[in-house]
């Protein structure tokens, strides 16, 4: 896997020094091996700090909304899931495609540092990656799947939009079914589902991380920030508000959400927000035919489309009573 990082750095340097682009959007080293941040590099020297490893989970497409509107061309390294978001943004005219040089970069699943801690390894000073396993601190070998983000365990995505690919090893798809938990919830009784969501959503602190990180949340002014909307609020002053916020947010990205999983990754309280998005995705698939947002931009979005024979709102099967 270290070969990939070398190739990534070479490619970034080449793109910058050849003048093909004037800046590179990628990831920058942090204080530890796991706290990498998205960053823009303007020179080959600055690329010293660039990094690409299993902790580069952030979806760079979000930053392209602003970056692509600036002067000059920007090179970006997108993982398969990022390309879906980027494609969707192209469809919604939120990015300027001409200003972006997309390098589709290999991804074997990204890590969650909390999952490392759960295995009991303690402080993670270094991680050597292999295709199936990781070596922590040069001594403890852990199965790669044990430390992957949930979204990577179910990921079956391949790059959908790129100018060039940077893939050394073929990507292994996740084995798990992404709708498994949705189905489990549907099989619960209504009371159980209510209790589940009540407990989960009551943790919400309305930090808006899920909204601000979401590449589908591109409104210049969110309805929840707009005092004139009568629903703006800064805190969950009542249990109703957390439901309102999350239902409406998920609804607003329904049919546009590419299931990149960023909302769940960033939630400080670990609320499984992807389960809301996946419910919409699974409903759309069931009611209106298979649809994957961001995959094919020629296809009409499910909520901007209709057929005369659509299912009636009173007739869906729904979860158990």
């Amino acid at each position: 896997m270290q070969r990939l990082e070398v190739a990534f750095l070479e490619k970034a340097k080449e793109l910058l020094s050849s003048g093909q682009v004037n800046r590179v959007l990628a990831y920058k080293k942090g204080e530890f091996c796991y706290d990498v941040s998205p960053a823009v590099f303007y020179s080959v020297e600055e690329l010293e700090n660039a990094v690409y490893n299993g902790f580069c989970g952030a979806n760079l497409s979000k930053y392209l909304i602003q970056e692509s509107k600036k002067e000059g061309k920007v090179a970006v390294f997108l993982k398969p899931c990022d390309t879906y978001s980027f494609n969707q943004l192209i469809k919604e005219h939120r990015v300027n495609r001409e200003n972006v040089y997309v390098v589709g970069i290999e991804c074997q699943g990204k890590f969650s540092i909390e999952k490392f801690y759960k295995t009991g390894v303690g402080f993670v000073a270094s991680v050597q990656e292999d295709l199936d396993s990781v070596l922590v601190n040069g001594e403890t070998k852990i199965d790669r799947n044990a430390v992957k983000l949930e979204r990577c365990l179910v990921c079956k995505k391949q790059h959908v939009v790129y100018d060039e690919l940077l893939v050394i090893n073929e990507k292994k798809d996740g084995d798990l079914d992404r709708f498994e938990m949705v189905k489990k919830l549907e099989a619960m009784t209504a009371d159980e589902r209510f209790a589940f969501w009540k407990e989960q959503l009551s943790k919400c602190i309305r930090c808006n991380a899920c909204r601000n990180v979401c590449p589908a949340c591109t409104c210049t002014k969110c309805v929840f920030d707009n005092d004139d909307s009568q629903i703006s609020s800064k805190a969950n002053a009542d249990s109703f508000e957390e439901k309102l916020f999350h239902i409406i947010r998920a609804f607003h990205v329904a049919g546009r959400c590419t299931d990149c999983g960023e909302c769940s990754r960033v939630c400080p309280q670990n609320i499984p927000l992807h389960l809301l998005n996946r419910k919409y995705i699974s409903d759309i698939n069931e009611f209106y035919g298979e649809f994957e947002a961001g995959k094919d931009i020629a296809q009409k979005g499910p909520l901007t489309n209709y057929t005369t024979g659509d299912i009636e709102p009173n007739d869906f099967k729904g979860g158990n009573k």
Partner: protein
Amino acid sequence: MKKIAYQNIDKLYGELASNLDLYMPIKKAGALNFEKYENGKEADIETLQTVKSVKDLFFPQVEHFVDFKTDGTKIDVIDTREIRSEFAIFGVRACDLKSLEVLDKVFLQEPVDSMYKNKRDNAVIFTLACQNPHASCFCKVFDIDASSPKGDVECHLTNGVLYLNPITEKGANLVNKLTCLEDATSESVDLNKQEIKAKIDALPFSNLDLSVFKGENLMELFDRKEWEELSKACLGCGTCTFICPTCQCFDVRDFKTNNGVKRFRCWDSCMYSEFTKMAAENPRKNQMQRFRQRFMHKLVYYPSNNGGLYSCVGCGRCVKKCPQSLNIVKVIKKLGDK
């Protein structure tokens, strides 16, 4: 000094909770936060940190303080502030306790914030020494001793025994009432303190250099060009501010009910784009300015107004929770390195 075997800890919680309201780290759906202890809830004092800090108990995220009833012309003002009786908080870490000192300087300064003061006066705080500090902790930089956190009652959890050492009279009164405790000597605790100190000294951030962050460097620091790079990835969410034990910005908002208006105050974040927005203009227009405001406030503005006390306690929550791994340590290192 008193003690109780850790396996019997539920007895201690139970007895405390029967005397007064007990708040402590409670695990709910995988997340640890301070909540009221009740039988059947999952108490956890072994995990180092709660997501939201202890400030939530003194300056809650939402605090409803006044109601207005209107009939078109007349307004009735109804004071709805909650008046607390004595309550206990268990398992407060040294950094969180120090954060209360930082908040005190804001809320107890004239004019005193009555809601905060009421809770502050009535809390009995059981602190807990940090057995296993995390790599993201840097409380030592702010002269906080996590091996001896003080408070009303100082607790140590070592070798399967919880030691309780009352520090204040308030703490002693409460501890002496408890029947589940046995008398203890201080050897294990002293040993424990030394162990913790050694651990803390070895932490990667324990020797951060704060020397540039002084009031006289205010303008120089403000104009540093590094802010642009530091804030580049900032999403403008409020995670860092809401989990931060010392962030105290709030908003006052009205909620229209079916028959009146409830006014409450709630946490707000200087990272939000509309934080300073006025009808005509916004003095902090871009995310860089808002990012800079937050860290300048913690490291320069606040200390210059409060005798050099930093508005950061090194708890490391932002280090762990920032979605894009931006944090105060990176700011300190970047700006401190001239």
